């Protein structure tokens, strides 16, 4: 899994890699690595700890993600940690597995969504963006682009016209994500923050176009 080094931006904090951090295992009381899922001595499931979403799913801390790989990692962890695997275990183990599965779901939900992933990664490097706070768009280029796209969607009358617009919006969103990958690699966080806002509007447009398309299809 190391082939893709170029696309991986190492954002790991200065906190050293040298000394593993140890916790006492709740079950056998011996030392267990803070990030371990199970105790290596007694096999008991451990709590989720407070690691970042990428590390939790065994992924490099980087914006670029292969969806298939993300799913593979998520399913793999859930296969071992999901409460269904602990139905016959003690209540403490059930509670820990629920906490683990909850943390995995939180990580997966954040990382599968390109907008949430960007916001999370910006926060991780200490650059906070508030997508809901600012109601006005101050970037004139972005404002212009979105107004034009919205207008086109409002004027589209046939399913074909909406489908064409949908295709265009999806392609624009795709290229916006490519720019995002580049911005994160170059550590241009202000640029990434600008792109997040654009991606958010484009995603909303894609959703609305899909809804519009299926309503038109129903009418036919």
């Amino acid at each position, binding site marked *: *899994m190391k082939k893709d080094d170029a696309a991986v931006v190492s954002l790991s904090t200065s906190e050293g890699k*040298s*000394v*593993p951090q*140890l916790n*006492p*295992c709740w*079950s*056998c*009381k*011996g*030392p*267990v*690595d803070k*990030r*371990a*899922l*199970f*105790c*290596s*001595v*007694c*096999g*008991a499931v451990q709590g989720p700890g407070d690691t970042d979403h990428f*590390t939790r799913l*065994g992924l490099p801390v980087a914006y670029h993600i292969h969806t298939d790989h993300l799913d*593979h*990692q998520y*399913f*793999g*962890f*859930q*296969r071992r940690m*999901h*409460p*269904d*695997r602990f*139905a*016959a*275990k*003690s*209540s*403490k*183990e059930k509670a820990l597995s*629920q906490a683990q*599965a*909850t943390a995995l*779901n*939180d990580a*997966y*939900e954040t990382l599968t969504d390109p907008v949430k992933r960007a916001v999370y990664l910006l926060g991780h490097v200490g650059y906070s963006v508030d997508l809901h706070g600012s109601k006005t768009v101050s970037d004139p280029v972005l404002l212009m682009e979105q107004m034009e796209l919205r207008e086109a969607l409002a004027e589209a009358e046939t399913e074909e016209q909406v489908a064409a617009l949908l295709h265009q919006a999806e392609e624009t969103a795709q290229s916006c994500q490519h720019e995002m990958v580049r911005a994160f690699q170059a550590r241009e966080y202000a640029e990434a923050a600008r792109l997040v806002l654009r991606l958010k509007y484009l995603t909303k447009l894609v*959703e609305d176009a*899909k*809804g519009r*398309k*299926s*309503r038109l*299809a*129903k009418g036919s």
Partner: protein
Amino acid sequence: MLFQIHEPGETPLPHESERPLAVGIDLGTTNSVVAISEDGLKARVLSDADGRKLLPSVVYYGTDGSIEVGEQARYKILDTPDQVVTSVKRLMGRGAGDVKALAGALPYLVDTPEADGMVHLSVAGRVLSPVEISADILRAVKARAEAALDKQVTQAVITVPAYFDDAARTATRDAARLAGFEVLRLVNEPTAAALAYGLDNGAEGLYAVYDLGGGTFDVSILRMEKGVFQVKATGGDAALGGDDFDHAVAEYFLNSHSKTHSIRELTAGEAKRTLTVARQAKECLSRQNEGQWMVEIGSESSLQKLTRRTLEELAAPFIERTMSICRGVIEDAGIEIDQIHGVVLVGGATRMPAVRQAVRDLFGKDPLANINPEEVVAVGAALQAAALTLGSDTLLLDVTPLSLGIETMGGIVEKVIPRNQPIPVSMAQEFTTYQDGQTAMSIHVVQGEREMVDQCRSLARFVLNGIPPMVAGAARIRVTFAVDADGLLTVSAQETTTGIEQQVAVKPSYGLDEEEMARMLRAALEHGRADMEQRLAAESTVEAKRSALAVRAALSVDGHLLSDQERQGIEDALNRIDLAVQSADRDKVIAATENLETATKGFAEKRMDHGIRKALAGMAVGDVERTFD
């Protein structure tokens, strides 16, 4: 002789004979079905002595205290309609207000002592809650399973409509507990169906499950691949089903009957009889194009004709409603219709040709019909029950069907967990005080998609006390919602500047509280108490075995850190646990477990010290697994 070696921490499977049997139960509006899987790969539906697989969810209450469930109860509708309860599932977790909205649709007397409490029914001189009536159905299911397997059955996976809210889920779990089941998991009906279908057919890709039962409608979009069943979105209507078709047909019959006969208010019995005739007509018209049925009101009877076409016109508004819900769910899943590989039909109402045609038109493909729509849910539940008790690689990832939130100023709902979130999930939202010096805050938990509180379902109210007096807006109250793998909600609230915390398991509004539950367990079941104690004893034994195994594992790795005397002390404590477990005395087991804890304190400290020294010297402590192949 060969010794068995187990993974550390793994408890060996009990012997075949002592392992409790776990069944899967589809507790339906019209029929209930029970199935078992002995190997986790195949499941079979358990039938009664006459080979019947469907158990009608109908209960007859005799004036002498007798109870009959199923086919026999259904025959009694004609003679003693007032003593027969049907479609009780529609009342699960419902309040008095909800039932008024269903008025006319319920052919029995509804008794609601308090305006805000759970609905009760007056039947044959008794006042019964829907939970108790469902428990009677589940007791019959349990008896059928035990007769078919000739063994005691104590554990079950019970299915619920995906669109059931928290109150209805809790009511279902309580009913099962009351009937003497340990509920391993509540599973959503479409998810159970997908599991049964997917495993059997090796399905891969995106699938829709269209589940139209007697009283509930669900649609789920799932992604299936290599043993993973990931629900992308779900939606439905907890009060829409084949029953509605029956009501429409019954009204049509009564309407045309009244053209030639005098009209008066129907008795509950006449209403039920007419509904029975209407249901027969509906089922008949799935096979033939028209027919005639006898409608009897008082002493007057008339022959009513119905064609399939008229039936379809009567059903059209209900079918259209399911289609509109399907479109919404597809949109929620963020996919387009043509990405869906197949549509699985579930529920007796999908036998209607008009329903199949509507599904075909919407999805643009023939629905998959190589499964029995009335059995597939129970089969899926049985497979899941086997997976939970025997172990499995299959993964069911479900979602929240409805948004969960709390009431804020002006009766507006602030969502805390949106719908279609994978479960288990935990999310928090911060709120603040709106008055200077405010020391308490009332928290009202609601479920639903609407903006206003009164249009959503109220789940619980509680008060967070002891907020330190501050100026308005200064306190920070963090409300955390946690939904477990059964879809059940727990809410806790904390004032973050002081750490004052309160936790509530959400249930009060329309469910039973713990006390009521305990009282019913004692009253309804002579051995209910013994059951509960047995369960507690089992739990403490699991805990004792777990800690003994953990200590033995630690001894084998780090035993060299101990002196002979220290080691002997621990060995003695371990022996005491083994003896206590054999004695099956709960108090002894708990005492022995605590004793082991004390006896190993010094050992634990030595191990931590040793581990830290090793780590500083650059030696790895165990493996940290983070990738899969």
